[in-house]
């Protein structure tokens, strides 16, 4: 014969009531947070995978920002390099015009004007950092203020702050070239500008008609400017390459972050439809258990006495 004690019976009902409550509580938390669990133990063996995915998201987001800074710096460099290349081109054009017209009147003012533009371009800043400063980007990369400083320098290379190129992290394990330094870009240019600025001392001032010696000198300088221009366009090409690498890295960073977010979501996010359905079942279980517990608790012999 199977006996049932009322205390044992009530205990069983109470346990089932508590189990239903516990299950409903879990579903409520899942519903309100959208997560499988509010504890790592609830995620189970996938915790390591989840944390790794969250780590990837965190780091990749940082690389996205770093790549953004790098892209901005490279774009600023591109604009400055273009400015310098344009100045070189205008100087060359002025020399060609002077030689074709035989008039040297505008060479000196043009030289001063373009030198000023070049110095300003070399001192371009992005986010408080001189983009041609290399690893010493916190100080102006050139100390020259005008063509006069360039002309008077015993050694034009001394007008540059010596610095190594900077490497920029754009992706985990990937860095791109942070661009040439002012010295790399303008060392030859400063020498040429100095030679042009100091040429009147030997060849006479650039005014009136060009002398034969002056024409020969300008012909030589046109060739020098062509070489400088080629070097600048080469640097612009490298800049474009670095920008392309940065953009590729940015795309890969976004892809990695998306992938990691999917992995994390699959581990920690709940299927809300399933949770709602289960919560409904749990509520029915709670009501049933509560009803049974109520009936069991109300058992009394007083009515029969």
């Amino acid at each position: 014969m199977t006996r049932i004690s009322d205390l044992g019976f009530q205990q069983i009902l109470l346990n089932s009531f508590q189990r239903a409550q516990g299950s409903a509580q879990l579903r409520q938390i899942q519903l309100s947070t959208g997560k499988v669990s509010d504890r790592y133990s609830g995620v189970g063996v996938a915790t390591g995978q989840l944390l790794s995915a969250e780590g990837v998201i965190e780091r990749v987001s940082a690389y996205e920002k770093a790549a953004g800074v790098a892209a901005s710096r490279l774009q600023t460099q591109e604009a400055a390099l273009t400015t310098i290349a344009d100045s070189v081109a205008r100087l060359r054009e002025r020399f060609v015009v002077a030689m074709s017209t035989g008039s040297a009147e505008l060479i000196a003012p043009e030289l001063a004007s373009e030198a000023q533009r070049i110095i300003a371009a070399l001192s371009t800043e992005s986010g408080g950092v001189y983009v041609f400063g290399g690893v010493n980007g916190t100080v102006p990369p050139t100390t020259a203020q005008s063509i006069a400083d360039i002309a008077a320098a015993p050694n034009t290379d001394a007008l540059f702050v010596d610095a190594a190129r900077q490497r920029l992290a754009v992706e985990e394990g990937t860095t791109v070239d942070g661009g040439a330094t002012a010295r790399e870009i303008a060392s030859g240019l400063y020498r040429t500008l100095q030679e042009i600025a100091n040429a009147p001392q030997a060849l006479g001032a650039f005014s009136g008609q060009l002398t034969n010696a002056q024409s020969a000198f300008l012909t030589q300088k046109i060739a020098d400017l062509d070489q400088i221009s080629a070097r600048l366009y080469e640097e612009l090409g490298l800049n474009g390459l670095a920008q392309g690498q940065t953009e590729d890295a940015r795309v890969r960073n976004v892809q990695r972050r998306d992938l990691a977010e999917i992995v994390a979501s699959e581990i920690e996010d709940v299927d809300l439809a399933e949770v709602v359905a289960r919560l409904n079942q749990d509520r029915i279980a709670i009501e049933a258990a509560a009803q049974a517990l109520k009936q069991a608790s109300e058992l009394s012999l007083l009515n029969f006495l």
Partner: protein
Amino acid sequence: MSLYVALNTAVSGLFANQRAIAATSENIANVNTPNFSRREAHFETDAIPNQFSGVDVEIVRAAVDRFLQGAAFGGAADEAASRAIADALSRIEASLGGPGENISYANKLDEAFAALTQLSANPSSTAAKADALFALQAAFDAFARTGAAVVAESDAALGRLNVDTARVNALLDEIYRLNQVVQDSAGAADLLDQRLAELSTYLSINVARSEDGRVDVTLRDGATLANSAGFAALGVAAGPQTTITLSSVDPDSGAASLLSSDVNAGIQSGEIRGLLDLRNVELPRLQALVEATARDVADELNAVYAGNVAVGATTPSGQALIVEALGVFSVNSALLADPASFAIARPTGGAAGGANDGSGAIPLANVATTAAARAVAESVAQIGSAARDADLKAETNKALADDLSARAAASAGVNLDEELSNLILYQRAYGANARVIAAIDELWQSLLQII
């Protein structure tokens, strides 16, 4: 049969049923008393030939299924042991936060690596340096927070061991004193079962019973805890390995005499076993895990930092990025006080470190890809996994204990339906006997009128 014999018979029936009704009332009153064994009325013939023929009743405690009761005690002990571990691990796990909260040391370390990555893009920014240093400090603070939670749980476990052993000692004293009266009192037998049930939640016990109801309580290895001759007392000896001591107690004077300085092996289950396992095994393991994980990461960071050069310097300073004090790791306070001095340059060819040289921050950020950093997530997973396993074990043991307890109660507990039918039976028998007495009274009256 004389009227006297008939009257005596009816009166004996009246009294017998009155006692049976009283026993039933006691059962009803104790329907919700744990470990109460119902009273049963056993009727038997009581007769003296030609003089008396009646009924006697013996009120006895229902037989408790000792096998089920022992199993229920064991189940309660297992549940208490696993619950003690599960609760502690759950609290330690709370120091990690939950998924999505991103406050675990793994999350904080990821944030630090992210800050170092951003520093590499803004190497001349003192704010970026401070951000990276404070992010690193936050990561090692998170390690320390979890480590402190483990230490706090260990201290709490010791406190609970002291409280538990004090309660166990009080129970053993009571069991000894109940042993002296149990043979004469069903109520004492109920109390004895209640004390044994409570004792079994603290430690696993073996209970041997004599015919008269006295019990001999021992640990699983046979060490005596309480019997009718005396009782023992437990103590706690804290040390690298926490041990439970056993002393015999003089029941009269209360003087204790040490029997064993280590009875851990005899305590195979119960809350005390759980707390011992926490103190001696589980918490030291987690403490070592967290500390080793933090140390490995700190070593990796320091190894990389050793190659970095400060602004204006030509060689590394040899300064440590992360320092350790008593197993707690933190960012070098000199760097926190002066973030600008955070060395992140990697000049080549003996050149001085440039203010905008972040090439040393990149390998620091790349520590995230080393085995030491990958082990961080794994260590959090291990803590979560340990908490989950303990929780599942506690739930399983609770279900088993509840089932065993319900089964044990089923054989000896009170069932109100049964008591109702018994009550009606005894009331009707009582009424029938009363009617017989009334009939005899009428006969007496008739006879007296005839006279």
